[in-house]
């Protein structure tokens, strides 16, 4: 009755005979009787495919879809049709990690291409095959810095990074002799004066996010020199879509570039999968976490790709590995690679600059026509934070009309209860934004 279980009664009989036991239960004889399950699991019995379809369709329809102006780390960009079609090619999605290079050239080459695309975007020399998300990538980048600068144990983290990144970092380093310290903020930007005061040679790394959590762009001119004066490493986390118009991490002088590639061809999917990217300069290559694909040759001299520099990894180094990561986000990384390859640099500039222009259009209307106050009035890419009286109720009223108006920062910071971060992508139309403004006018 189970279409994924091909064993017939006859098969089972023959197999038990070969094994030399009477029943399947005999195969479980090593399980002590006192813990062997006596009764069936207390979950519902199996369903037909169509019943499953209906149940799952019903669940999916209980989730509300609207016109989304939400961001804060997850963005509703246009996804070209080809991305989904390629990701549904069974030889990709039903494969394991490419241990056997000879029959895994497809995945290996796609990762090699992903690594190249990330390096081109960030301007760095090397990239790995992917990490889980931008938040865990921050922990991995800090670990790289700590391993590279053995005697330094302080990490300075900007107060404007995503609070979830900060939370993930705090969990990660809670029992390790590394001190995570926050750099004070000024007008919702990282305070360079505060950084100057706290940095010294005991600092292993400085972590900054730009555009930052509130959407504001951090001007990092001169920052790398300051950080490098103290032999610390500069880690810059960026929404990679912003790199279509804004300076890359290498342009700012970063040592490690991180971020999440969800804006590239991946739907918001209630937060996952995204893909954490990490790239760095050649000299830190062997400190990198996770899988890395390299180019080599086969015995006939043909170009081939293979998992390489594995001496860093957990299956070889065990407790001395650079990270414990094993499975990563390979297929999602492939999705981002397909996206970038499909649209090219011109397409990326188009998607990024349209997101930029549309966000600035909405910002202008909301501040000039509705008199809403900007949280800071700084430069931004496609996301900005406004102060909206009774923000929670206003967002609720808009949601009731099918518009997700933004992210009320109350959920992150109790003292920012009237702050709403609003994200606009190239997918939003003028008509939708005008409807947004009209609706907000009515519900304010």
């Amino acid at each position, binding site marked *: 009755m189970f279409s*994924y*279980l091909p064993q017939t009664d006859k098969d089972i009989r023959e197999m038990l005979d*070969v*094994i030399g036991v009477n029943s399947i239960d005999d*195969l*479980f004889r*090593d399980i002590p009787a006192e*813990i062997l399950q006596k009764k069936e699991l*207390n979950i*519902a019995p*199996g369903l037909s495919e169509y019943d499953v379809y209906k149940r*799952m369709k019903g*669940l999916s*329809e209980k*989730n*509300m879809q609207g016109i989304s102006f939400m961001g804060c780390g*997850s963005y509703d960009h246009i996804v070209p049709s080809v991305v989904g079609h*390629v990701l549904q090619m069974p*030889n*990709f999605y039903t*494969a*394991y*990690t490419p241990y*056997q*290079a000879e*029959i895994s050239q497809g995945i290996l080459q796609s990762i090699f*291409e992903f690594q190249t*695309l990330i390096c081109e975007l960030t301007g760095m020399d090397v990239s790995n095959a992917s990490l889980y*998300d*931008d938040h*865990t990538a921050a922990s991995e980048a800090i670990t790289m810095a700590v391993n590279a600068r053995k005697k330094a144990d302080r990490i300075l983290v900007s107060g404007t990074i995503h609070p979830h990144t900060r939370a993930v970092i705090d*969990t990660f380093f*809670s*029992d*390790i002799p590394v001190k995570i310290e926050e750099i004070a903020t000024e007008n919702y930007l990282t305070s360079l004066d505060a950084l100057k005061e706290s940095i010294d040679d005991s600092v292993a790394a400085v972590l900054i996010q730009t555009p930052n959590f509130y959407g504001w762009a951090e001007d990092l001119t001169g920052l790398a020199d300051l950080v490098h004066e103290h032999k610390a490493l500069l880690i810059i986390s960026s929404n990679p879509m912003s*790199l279509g*118009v804004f300076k890359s991490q*290498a*342009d700012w002088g970063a040592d490690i570039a991180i971020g999440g590639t969800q804006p590239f061809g991946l*739907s*918001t999917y*209630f937060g*996952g*999968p995204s893909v954490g990217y990490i790239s760095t300069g050649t000299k830190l*290559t062997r400190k990198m976490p996770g899988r*890395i*694909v*390299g*180019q080599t040759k086969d015995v*006939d001299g*043909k170009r081939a790709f293979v998992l*390489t520099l594995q001496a860093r990894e*957990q299956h*070889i180094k065990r407790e001395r590995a650079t*990270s414990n990561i094993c499975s990563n*986000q390979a297929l999602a990384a492939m999705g981002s690679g397909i996206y970038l390859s499909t649209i090219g640099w011109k*397409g990326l500039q188009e998607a990024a600059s349209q997101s930029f222009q*549309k966000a600035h259009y909405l910002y202008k209307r909301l501040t000039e026509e509705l008199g809403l106050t900007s949280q800071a009035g700084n430069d*931004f890419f496609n996301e900005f934070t406004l102060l909206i009286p009774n923000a929670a109720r206003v967002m609720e009223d808009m949601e009731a009309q099918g518009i997700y108006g933004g992210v009320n920062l109350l959920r992150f910071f109790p003292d920012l209860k009237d702050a709403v971060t609003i994200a606009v992508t*190239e997918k939003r139309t003028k008509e939708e934004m005008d409807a947004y403004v009209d609706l907000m006018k009515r519900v304010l």
Partner: protein
Amino acid sequence: MSNKLIFELSSDGRTGYRFPDLDVPAAPLEESVSTSLLRNSKPELPEVSEVDIIRHYTSLAKRNFGVDAGFYPLGSCTMKYNPKINEDVGGFSGFTSIHPLQSEESVQGYLEMLYETIKSLSEITGMKWGTLQPYAGAHGEFTGMKLFKSYFKKKGDKKRTKILVPTSAHGTNPASARISGFQVEEITADERGLVSIENLKEHLSDEVAGIMLTNPNTLGLFEKDIIEIARLVHEAGGLLYYDGANMNAIMGKVRPGDMGFDVIHLNLHKTMSTPHGGGGPGAGPVFVSDRLIDFLPAPDVGKDGDRYYFDYDKPHTMGRVSGFYGNMAVLVRAYTYIITMGSDGLQKASEYAVLNANYLKEKLKTTYHLYYDTVCMHEFVLSAKKMKEEFGISALDIAKGLLDYGVHPPTIYFPLIVPEAMMIEPTETESKETLDSFVDAMLEIYKTAKENPEILHEAPLNTAVRRVDEVLAAKHPILKWKPE
């Protein structure tokens, strides 16, 4: 078949996508933001047409092997069939288009699914409750180790800094313990291939936070002393961690919670049929016993009448481990599988996984060397040590030989305690005919090893590329494409 890189297919002026025209008034960027922010460098991205993209990836797909292409007995990886209904469900827009920060009222379908998934998996594992946030098995291990830390911190016990790990453990176990702030001590296996109780006793002390175990272990053997092991560890004040990589052996048969474990992670991309995607995304949810429930990552998922909600009110939480709530696309597929199989199907899946493994083991053990000749669970480990001595044929040669038979090779050189190891896990979704043809291939390879070993040294002959030079790759790393 061409294996050009996408960059080598690029031709200036092509594009694979047309965005809608900009429909708002636009000013030059430098009028809206400081010029110091703007990018001047131009990345080398490919310029290709949509046809180029599809042909390129179709060609790459032909150069790759997945479960849909054939038998994939990769030990410890549970390469079972990935049901197609899961993919259809995973594509429902009511799942894909939801933003992670939408109001709870607008994501009741998701919350219900998460709640029901935690409930079902808690029942399957015999644990109290859990979190679906961890992105992969290793991430679940990390979460579990931090739960240990939180538990001892709350008790004010600062001495417990060591984690015990068997020599046969997955490499992620010691790595996860280490990055979580523990020191790792290895405990040995005895002549049965099981945890040595004597050695365990020698290591237990008031400095031991706990032990990480896989049961069945990586030899495919059930740790039959598990009750005694749990008693000893608990009496010494430690906790037990269950690496769920091998859970496919025991669903509906025995539960880690009943064995005495305090924390367990599952690999949903193994046991619950979600695709591995060429290395991810996976999901490594974590489940706990009563004593660790307060420390689970926030937010938890709760239910109040008919309403589901996120529970952030967790004063003793170990903290956050992922940006949002985990790899939803994987969780949706896993839940689809759970309700498809149900209590009866999941139990059958484990029973047939064990049946298939024992059948293969019996068929192969007279030709290939089996270190521990006893009933196995869902997998078993053969050794090519004798073949290496007699014919100069290693586990690697056998693996490469299998490629020419259209079979994915077993896991090789793991576990480390078996020389020239070949770890074979057929899974329940393979028919007797498939197993028989695998046996035929293995027997033919043995014959070739004996009579014409040079053929196996040359293998594979019929793959997209032949044996690749790993040393060259590591010595002279080329990690990205560069324009010539």
